[in-house]
């Protein structure tokens, strides 16, 4: 798979068209905003926590298809997971999108998120794919309300 189809896989296009958990959450426990000043992309992630477990998560914002689909797939992937599980998932995701060798079945841990592996051939788009993850991470690390990719 090369070119357009390596980057814009069907799952990504579908989540861009109809993003999951795309809503403001008024009763959230925490939220954080991620911004990419280079392209003006902006995503806010809201969280509801049950102890250490992410009971609910949602996002809103504007951005390219990659950042929007990544946020959508992220919310689906992290719901119901504990904080350490989410952090491990983010680490695996980061490895895959930056093209680090993923041995030991690490790619399998990613499930649907593996559709972003094609991003590693497009280094300028890595920030698009990780924007929502940085915002989620900031929301989990309470007190940080705005993160920037720069």
């Amino acid at each position, binding site marked *: 798979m090369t070119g357009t189809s390596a980057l*814009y896989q069907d799952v990504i296009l579908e989540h861009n*068209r109809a993003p999951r958990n795309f809503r403001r959450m008024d009763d959230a426990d925490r939220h954080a905003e991620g911004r990419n000043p280079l*392209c003006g992309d902006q995503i806010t992630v809201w969280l509801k926590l049950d102890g250490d477990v992410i009971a609910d998560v949602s996002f809103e914002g*504007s951005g390219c298809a990659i950042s929007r689909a990544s946020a959508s797939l992220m919310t689906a992937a992290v719901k119901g997971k504990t904080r350490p599980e989410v952090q491990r998932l983010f680490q695996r995701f980061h490895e895959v999108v930056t093209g680090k060798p993923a041995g030991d079945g690490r790619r399998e841990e990613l499930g649907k998120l593996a559709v972003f592996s094609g991003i590693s051939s497009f280094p300028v788009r890595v920030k*698009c794919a990780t924007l929502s993850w940085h915002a989620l991470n900031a929301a989990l690390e309470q007190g940080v309300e705005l993160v920037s990719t720069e």
Partner: protein
Amino acid sequence: MPATSLASGFPSAAARFDVARVRAEFPILATRVHGKPLVYLDNAATTQKPRAVLDAVLGYYTTENANIHRGVHYLSQQATEAYEGAREKVARFLNAASAREIIFVRGATEGINLVAQSYGRSVVRPGDEILVTGMEHHSNIVPWQLLAEQTGVVLRVAPLTDAGELDVAAFERLLGERTRLVSVVHLSNALGTVNPIRRITAAAHRRGIPVLVDGAQSAPHLAVDVRALDCDFFVFSGHKLFGPTGIGVLYGREALLDRMPPWQGGGDMISSVTFERSTWAGLPAKFEAGTPHIAGAVGLGAAVDWLSRIGLDAVAAHEDELLRYAAAEVGRIPGVTLIGTAPERASILSFALDGVHAHDIGQVLDLEGVAIRAGHHCAQPVMQRFGVAATARASFALYNTRAEVDALVAGLFKVKQLFAQ
């Protein structure tokens, strides 16, 4: 006018314009991208370089390289002549009254910073005003904000119409007792709007206010005559005018430059130095501390000569035809909104496509070999004015063709197909 006299000496400059011959002078245009012919439509970011420029830079380093203005030896004299010769070429290109009015800088950005720090700091008092327009590039906003922090000067902004034109009446109302300088873009990099510089300079001069014109986008596309425009400062960048990166020009009226203090100190800009005090060299050396980008200036000199031989009237006619064609073809794609529809515009087509982010447009076009810019174009206030986070921007140069516009349009249909709702 020198910039166009070579071309306009012949009948019908536009008819003589041979785009295939022009293209053949740019080796990089033969590049293939992702297996497709390169369609380079990012000329507002930087232009490609013709052989005349590449040869001049290589030739300088091969046969003339030395430091300037100080050596008695042969090569130093050669290098000095090459560097000062480039200054003369630029002076003719802009129709400056004298080569002393041409200061070599790194680019348009540095030229504006020089004026802010030298002219600005020596003239403004707290509460004085600098007037810009709502379509400025960050390089004509941030230097004034730095000056504001240092001096208490206030930055005023003249508004735009919905078509992306300067609201000239509102602009004139903003010219006041406290206005110390007007700094205005000639050709907007985000909208393509060409501002009515003569009207602006006339209105400002009626109140004795000097005018800086940011010509980063205009100089490669429109014949510029600084005396006809009646501007007090004019800046442009070499790399957007088929020359090297890292070299640019500040034109300033000699009487103003004479009164301005240096903004950087060092070698080459002094008359004499003791530990107690130093005295400054005359123009233009006063503003060129340190060893300058000699090879860059030589390359820029070659670029303005090359461009003048083709003739900016012919260039402008070719590009105008191309922009009209592109605006019509891209504008009728369903879902496309053109951002910037001023009647007077040049070389730039900024647009949005419903439901598709500009970066995705740029990415898919790249995979078709078509290079455009996607983003805020270092003009975030313009994006805010038109309520978009980013636009896609195709920007044309003299070597672009109708066939390349067709490739852009075909690429945009692929974008639409991929992101179809």
